């Protein structure tokens, strides 16, 4: 494999292609697809679609990029499907910790499905001023777009890895995946191999105050565990990690509905307790011995 890396979405994005498929044109096309998602869905960028939604979508219908619209559709479907366990409305949490542009007013958390109205043809309006953070799904979606760009360019296989949200296709074959120790990011264990499928992990290795936002309490919290999801697309894998983190009791059923499997790692005494919804290896997920 020949690999290239660029920095997008706040992380190192690595694209690896088999030697026979590797060309600078293909790398450039895949990185361009990721850069596009970065620009449209970065809430900190005032020109992004997310900032435009916060500024104006409660006053008038606005037209967003087709990719932003697709992510909103997926987010909305997941929010409904999980009764709010996935919810990209972060206005309420953002007020207290300054990590997103200040919203004009704080809606009740978990109201995403009723706040955002998708009118079709890339038209969006909201029923109240809200701040959205698609960080829980956009990184995975960007990986999917890069994979699509590689396929469009005629590549026979490859791996796209955006800071641990990854997807492999075609001649890349079985790709071994290591998952970090939930309490010590310097360690990792080889849990499984994947083939023609996506993987995403959520945890709070690198933030003392926690990265997971619980839509039903509106608070950020430390999680102390990590959740890894294997799913057909990386957007789905990314988003489902939040569903498992927020509602593991009901997650198994949700995961099964989406053809996904989850692994949860929790520090336990001086060891790690690992649980999974995957009963046996499949054609896309091979458990490590």
């Amino acid at each position, binding site marked *: 494999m020949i*690999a*290239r*890396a*660029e*920095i997008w979405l*706040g*992380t*190192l994005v*690595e694209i*690896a292609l088999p030697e026979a498929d590797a060309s*600078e044109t293909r790398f450039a096309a895949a990185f361009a697809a990721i850069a596009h998602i970065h620009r449209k869905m970065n809430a900190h960028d005032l020109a992004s679609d997310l900032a435009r939604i916060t500024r104006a979508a409660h006053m008038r219908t606005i037209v967003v990029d087709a990719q932003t619209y697709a992510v909103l559709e997926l987010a909305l479907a997941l929010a409904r499907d999980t009764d709010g366990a996935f919810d990209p409305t972060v206005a309420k949490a953002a007020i207290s910790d300054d990590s997103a542009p200040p919203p004009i007013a704080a809606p009740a958390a978990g109201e995403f499905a009723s706040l955002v109205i998708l009118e079709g043809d890339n038209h969006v309006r909201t029923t109240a001023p809200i701040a959205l953070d698609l960080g829980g799904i956009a990184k995975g979606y960007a990986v999917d777009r890069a994979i699509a760009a590689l396929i469009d360019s005629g590549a026979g296989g490859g*791996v796209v*890895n955006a*800071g*641990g*949200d*990854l997807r492999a296709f075609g001649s890349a074959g079985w*790709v*071994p*995946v*290591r*998952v*970090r*120790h939930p309490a*010590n*990011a*310097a*360690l*990792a*264990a*080889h*849990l499984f191999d994947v083939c023609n499928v996506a*993987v*995403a*992990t*959520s*945890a709070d*290795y*690198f933030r003392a105050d926690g990265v997971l936002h619980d839509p039903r309490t509106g608070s950020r919290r430390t999680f102390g565990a*990590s959740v*890894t999801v294997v799913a057909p697309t990386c957007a789905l894998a990314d988003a489902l990690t939040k569903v498992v983190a927020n509602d*593991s*009791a009901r*997650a*198994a*059923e949700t995961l*099964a509905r989406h053809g996904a499997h989850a*692994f*949860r790692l929790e520090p336990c005494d001086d*060891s*790690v*307790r*690992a*649980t*999974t*919804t995957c*009963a046996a290896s499949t054609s896309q997920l091979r*458990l*490590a*011995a």
Partner: protein
Amino acid sequence: MEAGWRIVPLAALAFAPAAYATEYLTVEAAQRAAFPDATAFVPISLALDADQRTRLAAVAQPPGARDPRVWRAMARERQLGAFYADAVIGKQEYIGYALAVDATGHVIRLDVLEYRETHGWEIRNERWRAQFVGKTATDAVEVSRDIANISGATLSCRHVTDGVRRLLALDAMLGRR
């Protein structure tokens, strides 16, 4: 145990240092990509005085920042721009990167040259280290490309952004020569 979940056998959980290193581009390949028309890359030796260093530090102080390597990209007698090779060193990662700037001070491209994930953090943390000694840590410390994909690597690349700001300040300081 919640419905639908089962315990993964402990034997499957062989945690080892996440040592990993990849070189994406050589300095020479990144130079050619940034300045395809260049006929020569002339190394410049940096001789920054105390005042210049203070001004740079005021712009950004990325961890592990040292003096970057600097080249002038030339097309015969004409200067096309400057090429910087630099690195940021985080708690457990090393990112080598290159910044190409045109003759008017605008960024042409930013390339990641190299990424290394060290096990320095684990080695410094004796308590954690003791916990895993004897299990896996002893025999798996060598850097390998065999298992490249580490899920959950949500490293912040903010340090590279700081590094770029510092290089742009340096570029302005060196002037249009």
